[in-house]
């Protein structure tokens, strides 16, 4: 049997949104190679019950490593648990989400196992039992298709790109308590200044509302915040490089080649002209909307929908219209 493992993330004891995508990709590969997909999740005591919902994404089993030292991410704690679990089974492939955590942990796991890593994959096709992956390079200005000759094959998948499967399989949940000696750690988390309650990172959000120089003043961000608030909880603010460089917005919000690469279901670019580096960072979004007063702004060449007009007129009306729509749901 050749099995496939999905590394699933939890935050504060809740299984993360990207989990179902990772499990679904693992399940797809497992069904093509005649094995089964299982999930691994690491967290603090009491996590096991949260893991049971993963069955509908296609995993037949989920192993839950519970330990106080695993409640928050520390690579020193996580790396040995993942490596030992991989070695305990016959896993031909391992999938991570290309989240902040996945991008930190997956390279360490790959190096510890002496296998290469495919990062930030956006597509998978299986030919004769061999997975072929697609990933963007040059921030999406080009794509490569590649295979990985290694055992196991390890990749991270870009959030929001892969569909979530709807399987109705029974899931077997097993819990184990790893031995962890925090005395030997050479990296310690001193403090987490958490994001504001419910804040979602721009690279993982389902909807991104991005602003650029067209907003004219940092004070004017409230029109974007109002739009964000009516769209729903999984919505983040983004920013162009120009407004980050001007000190209007934090770098954590910057979308583009020297910021975050995003692929939300909906990307709304407001007052952003669309420099090539910005377009590179958001072009794999599913639906792109642009609002700009300049009809020749390059952003419109990338947009699925757009409105040419004054954003200070358009945005409040858009916010009202979406609010009305949501209240009918």
């Amino acid at each position, binding site marked *: 049997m050749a099995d496939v493992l999905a590394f699933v993330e939890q935050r504060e004891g809740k299984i993360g949104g990207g989990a179902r995508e990772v499990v679904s990709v693992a399940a797809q590969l497992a069904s093509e190679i005649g094995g089964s997909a299982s999930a691994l999740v690491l967290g603090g005591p009491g996590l096991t019950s949260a893991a049971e919902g993963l069955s509908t994404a296609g995993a037949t089993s989920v192993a839950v490593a519970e330990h106080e030292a695993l409640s928050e991410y520390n*690579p020193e704690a996580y790396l040995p648990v993942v490596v030992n679990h991989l070695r305990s089974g016959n896993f031909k492939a391992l999938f991570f989400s290309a*989240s*902040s955590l996945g991008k*930190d942990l997956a*390279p*360490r796991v*790959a*190096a*510890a196992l002496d*296998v*290469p*890593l495919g990062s*930030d994959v956006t597509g998978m096709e299986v030919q004769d039992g061999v997975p*072929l992956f697609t990933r963007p*390079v*040059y921030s*999406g*200005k*080009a*794509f*490569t*298709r*590649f*295979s*990985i*000759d290694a055992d196991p094959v390890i990749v991270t998948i870009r959030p929001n790109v892969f569909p979530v499967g709807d399987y109705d399989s029974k899931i077997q949940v097993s819990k184990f308590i790893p031995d962890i000696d925090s005395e030997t750690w*050479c*990296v*310690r988390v*001193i*403090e*987490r*200044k*958490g*994001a*504001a309650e419910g*804040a*979602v*990172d721009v690279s993982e959000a389902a*909807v991104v509302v991005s602003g650029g120089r067209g907003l004219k003043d940092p004070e004017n961000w409230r029109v974007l915040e109002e739009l964000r608030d009516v*769209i729903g909880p999984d919505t983040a603010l983004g920013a162009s490089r120009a407004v980050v460089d001007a000190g209007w917005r934090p770098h954590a919000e910057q979308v583009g080649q*020297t910021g975050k690469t995003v692929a939300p279901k*909906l990307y709304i670019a407001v007052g952003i002209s669309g420099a*090539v*580096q910005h377009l590179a960072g958001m072009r794999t979004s*599913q*639906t792109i*909307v*642009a609002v700009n007063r300049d*009809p020749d702004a390059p952003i*419109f060449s*990338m*947009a*699925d*929908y757009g*409105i040419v*007009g004054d954003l200070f007129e*358009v945005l409040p009306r*858009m916010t009202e*219209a979406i609010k009305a729509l949501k209240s009918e749901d």
Partner: protein
Amino acid sequence: MNVIICIKRVPDTETHIRVNQTGTDIDTEGVKYVISPYDEFAIEAGLRVKENMEDGEVGLLMIGNSEAQETLRSGLAMGADKATLLRADSYMDGLGIAKALAVELKDSDAQLILFGVKAAGSDQQQVGPMVATLLGISCVTEVSSFEFGEGVVTCQREVEGGIEVIEADLPVVLTITKGEYEPRYASLKGIMAAKRKPLEEREADFSHPGIHIERFSEPTTRGSGCILEDSPDAVAELVRLLREEANAL
């Protein structure tokens, strides 16, 4: 404290990337190469360590073809003291690059090894933590600022909308993001001085890549979008299309 900064040569981010005729790589004709922008943040961070401590050397380390010497000279012009080019003329995957760097770094006395958070090009974001794992030393990724304590470095990481404060034992690998390290421009004096700074070149320790790139392709262009002139109806129409056609709301 001695610092080593691992950098990469990449096409300028302004470059209009085209895939070559055979789909085996990008078309490099007329492409201008620069230090990867994130690596410039790392160089800036490393130079500030030396300036603050008034002690130690800043070395640059790169894997690349012979033309990469020019890129290393740009880093020397920013203020680094010396540079090493590990020459590789064929494709190496991230693990291969990490192994070759680890071979070079394992006998180094550098307490601080810096990388840009990722190369603007391959965008893999993996070599730094791989090198640390191979060397068995600590590593913090996506660092926006850091300062030293007794045998440790305290780092700020901007992740998932929050900020983490991480303490790591030395020696350490850090991957640097934009944060507070706005890179300096090379002065004319720096450019002149760079010509005389030591630059060694030797073969990289080559390992066969496990990643096989089958082809490069250009992104599919989006069909022309539905762009409306602003009017009260236009916004209502947009919201309707987003709900009913794009299924995005």
